[in-house]
């Protein structure tokens, strides 16, 4: 029983992390029809921003040594700045192209960012320890102990989700964003500033990526230039099975992928455990064969003018 509760918390925590990632991708897809494969690399950059830029083997913290609140603000601001710059310098110029072209542009941006990291920091993994107090265990009851970080991830995710829902439902720009997500051309014909709405989506998506950098680095304690790539793959899958373009779908997809991964690790026999990700992907194929439009149905990607 205790083991089940522990696994469940771990699954929800994993799912929360994936949900945040899928949401960052879903936000951009909904207003721009962009599947941003550089999103994972934004998370990587947020991690590397913690340390002094140098190729030395032992990392020296810079921002990583700040007071926690200042640290969070700095990292989130850096990743938001990166995301907004990627819009104005890169994606804006591909905005009228097909979604496939924009996706390829995002791949190019991602590889560029990885190589910039190699140039500045070198290619070797670096150990970084932030928020060490979060990685310890907490005793929930007699037999149940979980990592504090898992509870933090769940809490942070839900705070962000609720904040995002309030933003999208209650504020003027939030409503404009939902309108633009559904029918970009009509929204512009009513005077909604398209550039502003898209820039805002990049800000939100970048903010989520910044927070995820912190959660991810706290968890792993290691920086590598490719660390955003494998998680990005899971975020992408989560958005696809959730239903492209639906934010609710992104969250549902994120939780599905996260929970399935953890449950598979728990129930697979030892000799198959190494193939966990393969099993997850097989499940994804099965889901998409049964429901190609994803779990949550939305209007399919539309022509943009």
């Amino acid at each position: 029983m205790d083991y089940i509760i522990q696994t469940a918390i771990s699954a929800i925590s994993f799912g929360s992390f994936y949900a945040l990632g899928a949401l960052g991708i879903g936000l951009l897809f909904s207003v721009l029809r962009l599947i941003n494969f550089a999103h994972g690399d934004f998370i990587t950059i947020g991690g590397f921003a913690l340390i002094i830029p140098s190729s030395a083997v032992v990392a020296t913290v810079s921002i990583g040594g700040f007071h926690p609140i200042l640290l969070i603000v700095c990292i989130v601001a850096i990743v938001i700045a990166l995301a907004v710059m990627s819009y104005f310098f890169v994606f804006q110029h591909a905005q009228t192209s097909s979604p496939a072209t924009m996706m390829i542009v995002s791949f190019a941006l991602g590889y560029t960012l990885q190589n910039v990291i190699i140039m500045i920091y070198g290619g070797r993994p670096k150990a970084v320890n932030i928020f060490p107090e979060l990685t310890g265990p907490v005793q929930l009851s007699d037999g149940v102990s979980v990592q504090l970080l898992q509870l933090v991830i769940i809490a942070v995710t839900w705070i962000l989700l609720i904040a995002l829902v309030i933003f999208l439902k209650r504020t003027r720009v939030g409503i404009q964003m939902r309108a633009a997500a559904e029918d970009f051309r009509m929204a512009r014909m009513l005077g909604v500033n398209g550039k502003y709405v898209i820039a805002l989506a990049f800000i939100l998506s970048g903010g989520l990526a910044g927070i995820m950098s912190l959660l991810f680095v706290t968890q792993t304690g290691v920086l590598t230039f490719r660390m955003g790539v494998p998680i990005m793959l899971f975020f992408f899958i989560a958005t696809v099975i959730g239903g492209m373009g639906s934010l609710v779908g992104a969250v549902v997809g994120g939780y599905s992928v996260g929970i399935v991964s953890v449950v598979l690790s728990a129930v697979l026999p030892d000799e198959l455990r190494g193939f966990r990700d393969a099993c997850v992907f097989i499940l994804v194929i099965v889901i998409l064969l049964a429901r190609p439009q994803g779990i949550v149905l939305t209007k399919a990607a539309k022509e943009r003018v």
Partner: protein
Amino acid sequence: MLLSVENITVHYSRLPALRGVSVSVDEGEIVCIVGPNGAGKSTTLLSISGVLNPTEGLITFDGMKINGMSAEAVARAGISQVPEGRHVFTTLNVEENLRIGTSIRKDRGDIEKDFKRVLEIFPVLAERRRQAAGKLSGGEQQMLVIGRALLTSPRLMTIDEPSLGLAPNLVDRVYETLLELRNDRGLTLLIVEQSSERALKAADRIYVLRSGEIQLEGKAADLRDGEKVRQAYFGFVDGAAHEGEVAF
């Protein structure tokens, strides 16, 4: 002259969709563009609203050149378009849809006044304020998009086929409302219609557009018998049209 479209040519990829089209609308006028399917009526409106960019020609609004401006800038300049197929935001509720219409405005006090007025003009929207717009009937959606366009506080409203997909009594209701808006609020209207009968009834002036070119223009009062319009519309005179059997 409030709106002047002079000699515009628009290409879809390389095919010309409009060739040297000129249309003008005076303040307070109701002008209708009629023509068969594929004549270029919607293309004309989309060029005015900045969605399409004419390769040649000039569009001015209140003396200001507007071709080449973005759709949102044209909306800010005071032209609101109700495009074909209504385009309500289905996942937003009725009130949110209307609020999008106020995106360009800063005059908070007047927005609330206009908002109330729109709900008075279209009481059905007040009843369904919290309902998702996708759940409304076709007629209600038409009311919603007209109300939404009104909330941008436009000087000129362009409407693409307000009668499309609506029952005849609802079409009457829509046109009554449009006439009231012109008479009571001085709204200028440029309407695209497929039915020339309807256009002749509602408009001050009409243009007949076929194959991307203006075939005929004139005061609706002078064209009431419909014969010239019919010829321009179909491009030939045939027996069936003479008998007046063709409901176009």
